[in-house]
């Protein structure tokens, strides 16, 4: 079906207007819809971040719309490093700097849970250089879990192997920390 406005592009949007009980249907393409004011979208259409912004607003308004209007400047969180406020963050759907993650920390878990299927903590790569001991610490905690499991299942031989590994890693961490202190 072609757009009834420009007769050039295919109609991708279908509107049903009801004015004074009179129903009209409009078959129109996106370009014409924007021109004729059928759509009040921002530039790039309904992007993921509009969707996010919607989520954020919902987050700050658990008591309904009236709560939003009382949300004034004084109790708005502001990032000390880049100056972005939490209200601005909700509007643009983007962080201003790494510090924002700490500044807004208390409000972020519900957002991350929605965007990342319930997840709030990183499990992936740790940067080689600045990650420092993190690799070892993560490895250590997973080995400790493993050790607990092995002991519960009475697999003592395997447990001894894991215990030795734990000792080894603990020593490595010790050495690294001493090295850093120097």
């Amino acid at each position, binding site marked *: 079906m072609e757009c009834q406005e420009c007769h050039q592009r295919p109609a991708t949007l279908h509107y049903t207007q009801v004015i004074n009980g009179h129903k009209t249907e409009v078959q129109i393409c996106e370009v014409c819809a924007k021109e004729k004011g059928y759509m009040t979208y921002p530039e790039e259409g309904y992007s993921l971040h509009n969707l996010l912004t919607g989520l954020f607003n919902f987050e700050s308004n658990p008591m309904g719309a009236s709560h939003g209007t009382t949300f004034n400047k004084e109790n708005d969180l502001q990032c000390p490093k880049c100056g972005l406020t939490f209200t601005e963050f909700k509007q643009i759907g983007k962080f201003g700097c*790494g510090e924002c993650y700490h500044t807004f920390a208390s409000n972020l878990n519900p957002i991350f849970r929605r965007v990342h299927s319930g997840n709030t903590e*990183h499990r992936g790569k740790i940067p*080689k250089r600045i990650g420092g001991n993190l690799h070892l610490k993560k490895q250590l905690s997973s080995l400790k879990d493993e050790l607990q499991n092995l002991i519960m299942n009475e697999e003592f031989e395997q447990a001894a192997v894991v215990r030795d590994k734990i000792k080894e890693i603990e020593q490595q961490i010790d050495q690294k920390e001493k090295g850093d202190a120097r």
Partner: protein
Amino acid sequence: MTLEHFMNEAISPWMREEGPDNDIVLSSRIRLARNFADMPFPIIADQKDLEKIREFFQIEYEHTSFQDYKDLEFVSIRDLTAIEKSVLVEKHLISPLLAKKEGAAATLISENEQVSIMINEEDHIRIQLYFPGLQLTKALTKALELDDWLEEKVSYAFDETRGFLTSCPTNVGTGMRASVMMHLPALAMTKQINRMMPAINQLGLVVRGIYGEGSEALGNLFQISNQITLGKTEEHIIEDLESVVQQLIGHERKARNRILEQSGIELEDRIYRSLGVLEYSRIIESKEAARCLSNVRLGIDLGIIKNVSRNILNELMVLTQPGFLQYFAKKTLTANERDILRASLIRERLQFEK
């Protein structure tokens, strides 16, 4: 090497190599989003800060090499004409967002065009790496090595609990978007793909058209990628994506065979008609060209059309985009002029195969 090198060929050198399952999977891509720890993100940063980052990359990495990715060419977006920008976008060497940026946006592109490091896009650094066919694991390994190489000199914004910090909350954690470009004509013909999409979405994956977010599936090319970046390891994300891609490959092959068995002559007719259109038309719109190219490529994959190379789809899909056509013509063209030039380039290219 100069910028022209990237412009003159529609097909990147790495695309000429054979990859696994390349009758269906055109390419695998890994993208990593990274930021400097001590700088505001591009959305809010001062022009001065962004300029510093741009200069840092130019000084440290221009014409350097990492493993197979040789002689990184440093390209400042502000030095490009509008047409040159579209060519780089059409070749997937830069993102549409980077092309729109003024000021300190730049990119480093390796000689074989497999690697592109975008600077001051939505994040300070976007590492992008392509492999032909289905090679996600290999692409990930290489991308992470490249990441380590950059990290030797760049202190990343990284947090113990949140991982790599990115401007958009949808990228935090691994900062990784893995995607696979698939040619799924049989699933599209039988409309099965529409039924599969909701299921794919439920697995935390997204299906998009060839030029990313919001673009349509021109030429039955679909890009499948992960949506979730937090709470899973990179390897795990890739495993999930790969298993869905494998299933799609299986379904597509089955659908191809079924169509071939049940309506072989109709399929053959459709494929040859498309070849006819491409070989003889004088005016062709990009959509029609994409549709015909997809059919011809299917014909090649099924052994119906011989002596035309597989790369014809990838190559002509890019070559017939508006930016490329205008680069070729060395001037801006009206829609009609583009359709005429497109038809003539396609004819020429197919003639060349004979």
